[in-house]
């Protein structure tokens, strides 16, 4: 009898627990990370009563948490990937949008700049035309600054995102460690863990994982150890490691992530972080942002250098040789803050050859004797070492190391990183634009023959020995019938004369040599080249001299304008527009890749989530059915107790 009562009571208790658990499921259905719980009933041990074993009712053996570790890990991996791709996509879309905007894009500014040169060429002596060329070059540098500024904003954005992500990661690590403590304390029976605490910890890990990909390993006592990257620990048992965001040793404008240990910070290399928003941000910065900044810088530096080289071969309105049109571009040098304090080394790098510029970054180390160069992407560099105080050109930049370096000194050199921000027009006086060529030629009317002379071209060596007075070249032919007696002379004393035949053969002549005349050959001396052609007669002369008052001459301006279509960048394989187009292509491709990646990551996450939810998710209809079930069970158990009571009443009635 009492047995019946207690049987009923156990049923009641079990049903109550069941309803409570179902109610818990229903109310927590929308809590993120909640895994549904269910009761597992088992029979209580039977009592041996002679005729056999009589059951004693039921008990709740376990409140089971529906949870699959494998599915959960699958979901974690998918979410880490999605976090990384989405962060990358969010950042790179900003560059993508910037490049599609025709007002901020570089392409119209480049074209307007060259248009300005062409306009000045039409009327080279006019102040208005020259001023307009100056103003369109200011617009171009302004546009470079804008683009560079926008990219710098993105860098700063990445920096602050990294800082805040690191803070978030630290907050999560602390909380996870905290929960580890609580769970360890509350786990008395391994079969009955504190389910809700476990759910909370899982949710925290899931959110941490979206910030940076984590690896989770079980520890003792139902604790979880969390590590990042290739095993760097974040949470070990009840304690958590702290990450810190700090400035890079070689670049004060760059935030990197470091381990915070008491007394020091050790910077973690960038490849520690893969996956999660942090991984996406760092990958974006290294792969795309730095590269786009370097590529845009390459265009700026290449343009400044090539334009300057040609400008120096021209003559301005004052009759002087042209100077620099753009200020020379200097490479960015980051001195590692960990260098010895005794080191007084100073590095200067100036862009000197546009065609050899690369978009790579270089790491330089001093071994006590030489400064050794290495490209950050591993491609070989020649020459790869530079002696102190010896200007050496490497990949288009001339480096000069001065001061005393200490063995082990490190530097980071980024030749084109700041070029777009630094490019400026060095000329403010319209008279200083060198549109004319510095030499002009003429044929006196007194010549008896019809020999002609070309207009005269100068090469870079002209700057060392410019013409100060006209040079008269005389033609001689001792025998009018014999072409082999044709000679020319009259070159300045001490100069070397080079004759290049139309078929390509070259001969050089020094003072005292007899120089034969060949029609159509290119004659050069002291950096000036010209071509004599036609049929001169003995005694005819030709004059080459400085282009005095030649203000209507635009020969150098035409060569400057021609730089627009000349293949200069990348070893002479791309124009400036071509270089820009390939940057746009790269960004477009990468964005597309991230867009597709994001879509597929979303699909992967959805699938993983669906699988995980099919085990752990609450289905309200199912819970409704369970409610009914436990309610009926409760009613039935109650009925059992009622019957037991009635039976007892019947027993009591027997006495009356």
């Amino acid at each position, binding site marked *: 009898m009492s047995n019946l009562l207690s049987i009923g009571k156990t049923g009641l208790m079990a049903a109550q627990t069941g309803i409570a658990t179902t109610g818990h499921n229903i109310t927590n259905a929308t809590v993120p990370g909640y895994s549904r719980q269910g009761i597992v009933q088992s029979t209580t041990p039977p009592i041996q009563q002679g005729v056999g074993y009589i059951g004693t009712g039921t008990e709740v053996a376990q409140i089971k948490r529906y949870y699959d570790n494998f599915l959960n890990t699958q979901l974690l991996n998918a979410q880490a990937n999605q976090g990384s791709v989405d962060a990358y996509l969010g950042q790179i*879309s900003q560059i993508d949008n910037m490049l599609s905007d025709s007002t901020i894009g570089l392409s119209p500014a480049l*074209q307007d700049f060259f248009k300005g040169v062409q306009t000045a060429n039409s009327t080279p*002596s006019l102040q208005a035309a020259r001023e307009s060329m100056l103003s369109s070059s200011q617009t171009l540098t302004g546009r470079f600054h804008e683009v560079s500024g926008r990219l710098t904003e993105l860098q700063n954005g990445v920096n602050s995102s990294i800082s805040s992500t690191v803070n978030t990661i630290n907050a999560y690590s602390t909380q996870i460690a905290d929960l580890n403590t609580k769970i360890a304390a509350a786990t008395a029976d391994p079969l009955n863990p504190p389910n809700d605490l476990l759910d909370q910890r899982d949710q925290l890990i899931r959110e941490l994982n979206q910030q940076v990909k984590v690896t989770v390993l079980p520890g003792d006592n139902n604790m979880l150890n969390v590590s990042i990257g290739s095993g760097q620990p974040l949470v070990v048992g009840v304690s958590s490691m702290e990450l810190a965001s700090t400035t890079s040793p070689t670049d004060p404008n760059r935030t990197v992530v470091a381990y915070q240990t008491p007394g020091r910070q050790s910077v973690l290399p960038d490849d520690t972080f893969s996956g999660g928003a942090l991984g996406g941000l760092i990958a974006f910065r290294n792969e795309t942002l730095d590269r786009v900044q370097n590529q845009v810088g390459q265009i700026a530096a290449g343009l400044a250098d090539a334009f300057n080289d040609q400008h120096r071969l021209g003559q301005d309105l004052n009759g002087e040789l042209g100077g620099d049109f753009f200020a020379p571009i200097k490479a960015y040098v980051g001195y590692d803050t960990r260098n010895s304090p005794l080191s007084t080394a100073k590095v200067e790098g100036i862009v000197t050859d546009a065609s050899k510029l690369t978009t790579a970054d270089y790491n330089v180390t001093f071994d006590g004797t030489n400064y050794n160069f290495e490209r950050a992407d591993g491609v070989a560099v020649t020459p790869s070492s530079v002696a102190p105080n010896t200007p050496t050109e490497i990949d288009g930049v001339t480096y000069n190391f001065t001061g005393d370096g200490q063995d082990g000194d490190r530097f980071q050199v980024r030749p084109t990183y700041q070029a777009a921000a630094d490019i400026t027009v060095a000329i403010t006086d319209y008279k200083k634009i060198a549109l004319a060529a510095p030499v*002009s030629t003429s044929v006196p009317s007194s010549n008896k023959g019809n020999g002609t002379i070309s207009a005269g071209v100068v090469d870079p060596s002209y700057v060392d020995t410019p013409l100060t007075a006209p040079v008269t070249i005389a033609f001689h032919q001792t025998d009018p019938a014999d072409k082999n007696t044709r000679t020319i002379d009259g070159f300045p004393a001490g100069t070397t004369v080079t004759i290049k035949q139309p078929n390509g053969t070259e001969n050089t002549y020094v003072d005292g040599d007899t120089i034969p005349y060949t029609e159509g050959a290119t004659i050069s001396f002291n950096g000036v080249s010209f071509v004599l052609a036609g049929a001169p007669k003995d005694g005819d002369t030709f004059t080459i001299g400085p282009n005095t*008052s030649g203000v209507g001459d635009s020969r150098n301006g035409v060569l400057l304008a021609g730089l627009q279509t000349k293949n200069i960048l990348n070893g002479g394989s791309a124009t400036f527009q071509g270089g820009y187009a390939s940057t*746009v292509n790269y960004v477009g491709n990468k964005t597309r890749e991230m867009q597709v990646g994001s879509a597929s990551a979303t699909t992967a996450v959805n699938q993983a989530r669906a699988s995980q939810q099919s085990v752990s998710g609450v289905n309200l209809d199912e819970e409704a059915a369970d409610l009914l079930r436990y309610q009926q069970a409760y009613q039935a158990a109650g009925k059992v107790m009622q019957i037991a009571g009635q039976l007892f009443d019947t027993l009591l009635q027997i006495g009356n």
Partner: protein
Amino acid sequence: MTRISTSMMYERGASQLSTLQSNLLKTQLQLSTMRRVLTPADDPVASARALEVTQSLELNTQYATNRQTAASSLTQVDTTLQTIGDLLTDVKDTVLKAGNPGLSIADRETLAVDLEARMADLLGQANTADGTGGYLFSGYKTNTLPFVQTSTGANYQGDQGQRELQVGSGRKMAISASGSQIFENNITGNGTFLTKPQVPDPADPTDLPNVGTGIISPGSVSDATKLTGHNYTVTFAKDATTGKMQYSVTDDSDGSEKIPLTDYKAGEPIAFDGITFDIKGEPADTDKFTVEPSKNQSIFETVQNVINALRTAGTGPTAGAKLTNAMNEANQNVQNASDNVLSVLASVGARGKELDYLDDSGSEMNIQYKSQISDLVELDEIEAATRFSQQLSSLQAAQQTFKSATSLSLFNYL
């Protein structure tokens, strides 16, 4: 899987709706900007290509602008040259008039004054401004006055530079001609040699101008292969014995005698070394004539020479012969100057024609480039409109089914 949690149903439906919405929004953006490629990510290859084609298009437009500048400069040169040609015709008429032996000194003075006016006109044309504050015919020295008048003609202060503009990719065109090319490169004589009475050597007091009335013809080339390019002197001497006038021809370069003393007959051809000419009239004893190779002479010098000749001619047969010889020489030189101007005009015309061809091909290229860019980045409206209505209807269907699917719940029946 067989089990779906309630939150999955909502999440799935909501995310699907948001995907459909964002696709619809993108199509709408494409339709409103009429561009298929909104950002480079939409089609990276087409974006990069479009940038390059845009540069070609802009360059093409710039060349067209340059061609306009070149054309207007060439038109100005053309107009000026036509005027100069007309002026030279006037000068030639005056020279012909001046050859009339019946003119009085006063008449000749009138002609000289007329020629001075023509000279001033020529100078004015030579110093034409180019409309942008410089001069048209100074070569590179556009701020320097091309010609300055002197007592013997005019000095050229410019240079021989050819100002060029880039009128096509790979084509630079000269947009003017230098003053020296137009005015100073006029050949003298008949193109190969010039015949004239000998100009006395100012250092030798015994060297006197001709006193006879010999008129020398311009001459012509009879055999080009025998030409030497030397200077020759024809000397007249009266034979003391016979009293007849004789002449001999010596080569000035080596003193050799080309034609020994021969009797002079007026009008009879004198030929040697591929050259032939004749002398008419009555040359006097010790009169000399020279044959020199043609060289370049400035038109201003030519006109000034005519003015000087008109002013210093006296009366009498000797003066008459001297004036006639001078006018013969001037006539040839002015004709040559006219021819030179014509040839410069012809080259200007040819350049103008080339500009026309370049303009035609330039506008063809313009159309090509524009259509290339359109193919690359612009929208096919029909396809986009169809896509838009398709996406709209799927969005509507998704919204309706979402509502129905999520409103089913067992709790409704409890």
